């Protein structure tokens, strides 16, 4: 009797485990494809008709406009400090705007909430911003946090703006605006670039992304477009988000064994750096290529890996010092005025450029600014170019940019070379 019970128990456990694994393996392909197809359909729909959100003047008074920004100020309770410095950067930017007289005789009150680089905390941050009656909410960094917070805000009919990340569930929503090209769309452009500019029609290409549902759109776009361009994808892998060194070493062996000449990577800089180091260790130095909102290829210390020198990256912003944008000097001056004793945060120019677009839209919305008029102002800013950020174009859909630049990492200069000067939307 005991024996039969044990047998029964084993059978049940084995059965459940096998079912679970089979479900995961089996459903992945079909559901995944279905989801992505549905996303594509939605994106197409939004290209023709643009929905609106209920209008509201929440956050607007005679003397001020209140906006909300969530930033990863801490992680696990530990202040990130100068690693990102987004909270301080936001403060410095809007201080500089107010110091110059505000916008349309109103001061801009930027409510900043710490999203803790964590989804649950990001949702709390967004609720907090909602309770402070803000005109709109902006995300800054962290795709998972941006997606979660955007879903919440949009559910409450609060406009949500961010840099472009993934598209699923976001870009078809009336109140959402991505200020840069999404990773999904960069995937398509990247495939074109690989095929046409990196000899990807002749050379073999591999794709490595971190394990997150948020990269699925980008993954599919790159895969499909490369196939369309006549390229050969010899590996399409996902690696651990934490950057497991053993996995990265094995991944390099796989890429090397598959003969990949070009490796398209969408992952945290720590992962791409680790991958490049592992590959170089094996005497394998492919051309690394990455999508990014600002700069990929882990260009600054301590993340920078010399092995990534020569890595190329799509970017939705230009290299600050070489952009020629007056915003760059203004950013340094504005920062110094607020935080005279602290160094300007790495990559902070990007967000200065982002906030500059918000400022312009608030300005254009005029005295009668409301949620709907603010979004309408953004939509009307086609061609707005602050020389740092990509030129804006919301006329077709909720993604404000169809163009990117391509940059190349150069270890000797500890920065990027800008190798394509003008914005482009096809290669």
């Amino acid at each position, binding site marked *: *009797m005991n024996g039969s019970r044990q047998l029964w128990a084993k059978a049940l456990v084995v059965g459940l485990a096998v079912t679970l694994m089979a479900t995961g393996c089996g459903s992945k392909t079909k559901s995944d494809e279905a989801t992505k197809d549905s996303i594509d359909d939605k994106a197409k729909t939004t290209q023709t008709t643009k929905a609106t959100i209920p209008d509201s003047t929440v956050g607007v008074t005679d003397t001020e406009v209140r906006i909300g920004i969530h930033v990863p100020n801490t992680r*696990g309770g530990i202040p990130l400090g100068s690693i990102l410095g987004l909270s301080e950067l936001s403060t410095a930017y809007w201080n500089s705007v107010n110091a110059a007289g505000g916008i349309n005789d109103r001061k801009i009150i930027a409510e900043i909430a710490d999203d803790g680089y964590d989804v649950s905390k990001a949702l709390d941050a967004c609720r907090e911003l909602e309770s402070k009656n803000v005109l709109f909410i902006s995300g800054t960094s962290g795709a998972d946090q941006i997606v979660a917070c955007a879903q919440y805000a949009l*559910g409450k009919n609060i406009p949500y703006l961010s840099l472009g990340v993934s598209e699923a569930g*976001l870009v078809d929503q009336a109140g959402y605006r991505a200020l840069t090209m999404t990773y999904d769309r960069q995937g398509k452009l990247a495939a074109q670039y690989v095929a046409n500019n990196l000899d990807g029609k002749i050379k073999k290409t591999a794709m490595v992304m971190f*394990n997150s549902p948020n990269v699925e759109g980008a993954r599919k776009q790159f895969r499909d477009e490369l196939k369309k361009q006549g390229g050969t994808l010899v590996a399409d892998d996902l690696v651990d988000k934490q950057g497991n060194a053993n996995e990265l070493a094995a991944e390099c062996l796989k890429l090397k064994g598959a003969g990949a000449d070009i490796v398209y990577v969408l992952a945290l800089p720590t992962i791409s750096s680790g991958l490049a180091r592992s590959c170089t260790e*094996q005497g394998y130095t492919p051309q690394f290529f990455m999508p990014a909102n600002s700069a990929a290829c882990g260009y600054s210390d301590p993340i920078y890996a010399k092995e990534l020198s020569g890595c190329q990256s799509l970017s939705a912003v230009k290299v600050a010092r070489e952009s020629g944008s007056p915003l760059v000097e203004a950013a340094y001056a504005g920062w110094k005025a607020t935080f005279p004793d602290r160094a300007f945060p790495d990559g902070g120019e990007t967000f200065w450029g982002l906030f500059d677009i918000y400022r312009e839209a608030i300005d254009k919305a005029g005295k009668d600014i409301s949620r709907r008029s603010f979004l309408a102002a953004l939509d009307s800013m086609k061609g707005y170019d602050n020389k740092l950020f990509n030129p804006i174009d919301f006329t077709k859909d909720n993604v404000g940019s169809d163009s990117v630049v391509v940059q190349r990492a150069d270890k000797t200069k500890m920065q990027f070379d800008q190798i394509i000067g003008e914005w482009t939307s096809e290669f």
Partner: protein
Amino acid sequence: MRDLVTFVVSGLAGGSTYALLALGLVLIHNSSRILNAAQGEIGAFATFLVAGLAISHGWPWPIAVVLGLVAGAGISLTTASVLLRRATGGRLPPLVGTIALLSLLVIVEARYLGAAREFPSPLSGSGITIAGLVLTPTRMLIIGAVIFASVVMWALIERTPLGLAIRASADNRAAATIVGLDPKRVELLTWLLAGVLGALAGILLGWNNQSISPGFLTIALPQAFTAAILGGMRSAPGAIVGGLAIGIIESLTRKYFGSTPGSPEAIVFAILFFVLLLRPQGIFGRKSRRLATEGNESLVSLDHLVSIPRRPRISQRVIGALPLAVTLIAALGAATLTSPQGAYKLAILPIFAILALSLNGLIATTGQVSLGHVGLFGLGSFATAVAATTWGLPLPMAILAGPALGALVALVLGIAALRIGGLYLTVLTLAFAVMLGAYVFPMPAFSRGGAGILVIRESIGALDLTNESLFLAFAIIALGLIWIADRRVLGSPFGRAAIALRENETAAAARGVHAPVIKVLAFTLSGAGAGLAGALFAYRQGIVVSSAFPLSMSFSLVLYVVLGGLGSRPGVVLITALFTWTTFYGSSGSSDFMILGGAALVVFTIGRYPKGLGGLIRITTKRLSLLGRRVQPLSDLETGGMTVAASSISSTHVGTGRSHKMLVRLPDGKTMEPSLLGARDLSISFGSLSALANVSLDVGPSQIVGVIGPNGAGKTTLFNLLSGFSTPDEGEVWFAGHRVDHLSAASRAEWGMGRTFQQGGLWLSETVLGNLLMAQHLNVRPASVIGFIAVGANQWKLEWRRRKVAEQVLEILGLTNLRNQPVGTLSYGTRKLLELGCALLTRPRILLLDEPAAGMSEDEVAWLAGVISGIRNELGVAVLVIEHHVPLVRQVADRVYVLNFGHVLAAGTPDEVTTNPAVIEAYLGTQGTAAGRSFVSGTP
């Protein structure tokens, strides 16, 4: 093929880091039997120090490295001396202390040691190529270090007196002390060595990665735990092989399943699961043929928890209704006094409190620790989200999907818990959570391409749950109901049975407690609680995304439960609320200091107060209740008890006269005595030692049969085979006309086979009354499962009846004065008496008594003889008794078997066997010894 070999070699190289970490874990486990969650972080911290010295201050690498190793050793040593200060709280509090230390070190690294930084290897060169894999000098150094460390550790543990001391100290500290060892010193030494190993792993991995960041080594800890478990947890070579095996699995997974999200985690978990299912002791672990009477796998040591049924007086009814009243008042307050934003924030507290209570219940009832509760929590969230959106179920039904899925998956974990326990189960649940987070939650059905699932609240009738305040009230009511249910379940027959199992699996089985049912039910109920918390969380958040359930949440949860005081609902809820609020809403500027301070507080106090806040509350309450009372010394109570016992027993007219034999007349007119319990050719060997060989015996209804024999004759082994605590290699056991040798001990108890033990048949941490209540498990004939888990309407009456029975037995045994004494404080003789009472409460048809007279005075033995006869004469229960006290056996037994070297030497009436020359020879050895004279003369 060459390609495959390359990946295997790469896996071996990569797995070497896991192996180094696992070695440290095994070393600590060998000496302290705990998991050191901070093993990786101690190494990371030491590496940060090395980086500071060598890179920031330009010290020579060798000096910096040596100082780093010293730092690792020092931190580890200090940790051990602080956390292991008291050995009274079980193995869980030190584990929690290491979790707190892990948090503390990460914060210090991030805040004061530069966070992420470069860590270039001082070794240069192109390396060598093996099977297509380039091994850099750094990688070769790592492999060399692993080989060196494994050889040293193996030699240390297996081939040196120190290794013997480590093993001896861990297995039995008291025995080790008796033979002159200092277990504490041995323990500290092993922690010191483990610290060196951790630091070495950190420095080498840092060089390999050329950069370090806070927690960089802790990332590899789940793999290291798994490696140690796969290797058998005690074996240094096993840890090495386990680590390398995981490295190879990861490497090959990359080769073949690289495009499947989370495939390495899923495959490592699956392998761990199946290995443990098929070979619970791990690949290198030795399967000890442990008798079931040798303890349990509980990770905790708790104060007595068995609730005593009380007559519901008005005052007690008021107290009993307090949780309900508090819940209603809190819910009313929440509904009327909170702002929407405040209510939303506050709603996280009851949700996490429910989650913590679900884990608390599991630990309190089973003694097992789950690090997978965050997975059950997440599953509950997703189940409710899918039910509400994809299936379109209304909120009242969708919210039930969470607990349903949580319960179902926990049921599977419960089944696993039947095969493994202790730290093995803990690591299995950890792997389970890792697998869910990496493989299951990102599945498209759950993640929706990263967008997550939006969950919209709705109204339930007039209750508008879109209102944050009302939702908070709803969550508070849910917490109140869980609280009340938890209390009732713990006080139910199920709760008692679970505690009985946790504290003494042997005693529980002897009283008819079926471990499989109880364990699986405990896990299932806990899973349902975690799932319910997840369901509420889904509705609170409004969106469920796969990244909302980080593994660290599981560690935090265990920390809350231990700090709150295991088994203490108020403490656990209070601590959970405090930490959850701080984590979520502590001001960002000061929260790191709060976490830093909190973690330091835990590290430095958990060793001194292992029972946490709940323990302090219990101690304080007890002290307050004792204020002003005159405490009667225990010796007085016991003396009084025995006196009463003697008079009570005599007053029940328990005589020593023999009963008439029960005879069956056969068709041919002959008569025979039927057998109630029969053994047929029982044999069992332990290794090459034959403990019993072809032993047969019979005990008739209402017969008293004695088994005597010299030490080592196989008497207790025979009892274990008869009662189901060991399985015979050959032979059969028959009871009441049925073959029962395939039945578990609990089933045989259920059939009417009661027994006592030489020692270990009681629940020492529980009170005398608690023991008698737990022993009545077989009297819980639930008309339904409802009664079993205490939700039946007449539960109180049933419980009160059980208490009355227990009180009657106490009175008969003369132990009434001792009813509230923990059994662990009683004398040996009193325990024997109590155990007899416990055995009788199972209403046996036969009672197997294992040396009942041991430790008794002659007067007490005489009294015992009357009791044994009384059991047969008054209750009609047959008795099989093992006893060295031959005069006692001669006095009470109808028939006697003599065992010698595992064989039946003689059988017959007491007079026949005591005059048997072979028996005398066996006892005497040589003529004229005292033992022989006493045996023949019948005096002790």
